[in-house]
């Protein structure tokens, strides 16, 4: 196995590395730096539902008769009364909910302020991504 690897290294050093290098010279450096010209010349699928799009709705129905119109009027009056009662109940509920939400928001805001202060104190200890202190870390494609 060791012999196999040694041989591979030699083959690589003499052929593959060179072939790649000359290819990169042509495709990257020569082309990128325009060396053909003189320099002075200037120059989830986690089973989530797909996003919904609104569909255009078009319907055609026959015109209603007079009796049907009366029945509909009575129906809509009852519906209006019911809706008014429901709206009143909802308003009361909303007021109660708002009071509870205000109290919760106050609590959350206090917690967020504490978290922000803790995070800021933590960040102050570490160098930020833009820093003069870290030495440059180059990168390339990790080979092995």
């Amino acid at each position, binding site marked *: *196995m060791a012999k*196999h*690897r040694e041989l*591979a*290294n030699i083959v*690589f*050093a003499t052929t*593959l*590395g*060179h*072939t*790649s*290098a*000359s*290819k*990169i*010279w*042509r*495709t*990257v*450096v*020569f*082309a*990128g*730096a*325009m*060396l*053909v010209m003189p*320099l002075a010349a*200037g*120059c*989830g*699928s*986690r089973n*989530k539902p*797909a*996003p919904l799009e609104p569909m255009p709705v078009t319907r055609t129905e026959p015109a209603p008769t007079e009796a049907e119109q009366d029945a509909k009027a009575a129906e809509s009056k009852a519906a209006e009364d019911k809706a008014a009662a429901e709206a009143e109940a909802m308003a009361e509920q909303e007021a109660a909910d708002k009071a509870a939400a205000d109290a919760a928001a106050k609590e959350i805001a206090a917690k967020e302020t504490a978290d922000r202060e803790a995070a800021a104190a933590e960040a102050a200890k570490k*160098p930020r*991504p*833009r*820093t*003069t202190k*870290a*030495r*440059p*870390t*180059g*990168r*390339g*494609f*990790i*080979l*092995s």
Partner: protein
Amino acid sequence: MDVLAAVDPQGRDEFYEPTSPWWLSGTPLEAEHHRLMRRRSVSIPWAASTAAALTAPERARLAGTWMRRSEAEYLAVSTFSVLALDLLAARAPADVLSLCLRAGIDEIRHAEMCVRMAEIYSGKQNLPPFGMSSLPDEPERPKLHQALANTMLVSCVSETYATTVLAATLELTTDPTAHAVLTSIYSDEVMHARLGWSYLRHAIETGDAGRKGETVIDAAAQMLPRALRGVANVVEAERPVGEVTPAVRTHGLMTPAEERVIFATCVREVLVPGFQALGVPVGSALDDYGDAWASAA
């Protein structure tokens, strides 16, 4: 002469499928993300992987390396983000800015592909390890010089080296999935590397007008040894445990010894001639990364 004729980094993968859905947000943004991610040069035949024919230690070795690759690709996302700020500060031309910002998106695609490869070998759906770029920031320097120096580090040196490694690795890779992933990454890295060489030329030609003191060439020459050392640090780093068997090699992996040879070859045949052609002094680069360094593994 269009030397990049064979490379289409703006291709469209007609057979695209979500690459690492476990890394996504679960919101409608995913649909647009997929539109961005399918813009790649080749289709990836995920189901064609021959990983099942490997031994458990071989699969573990490959999983370890692909996770490290995902870490490096993830880090490159923030690297290009920070570089974009430097280029903006230096009032770089619009094409330089758009290419730099697109490179960040490409690196997200690469990181996704790498964690998917790691999953193929390990069966585990991991996220790339967290990392943030630490490009040098020297506020007292002219903004152009900082932008140029960091472009050299990120693009001219690191990305050019990456393309050399990828080109060499591709020649040994026979597993169809690994081959397609490496080809896809390679086609993007070629553009990431060209970005640097183009900007370097542009900065040399236009940058010193009306400026006194340190020149663009001075700034480039100063950065070169630091940039080379930065990549050498990566080449010299520890490797995951496990033997690089012949079967492992066909899945796109070589030995640290070979990687040293590639870097030394890249310095000698690509980087040094490139900087010299642009008039940037290369100092002791050839001696620093010559045969002695290459065979020191």
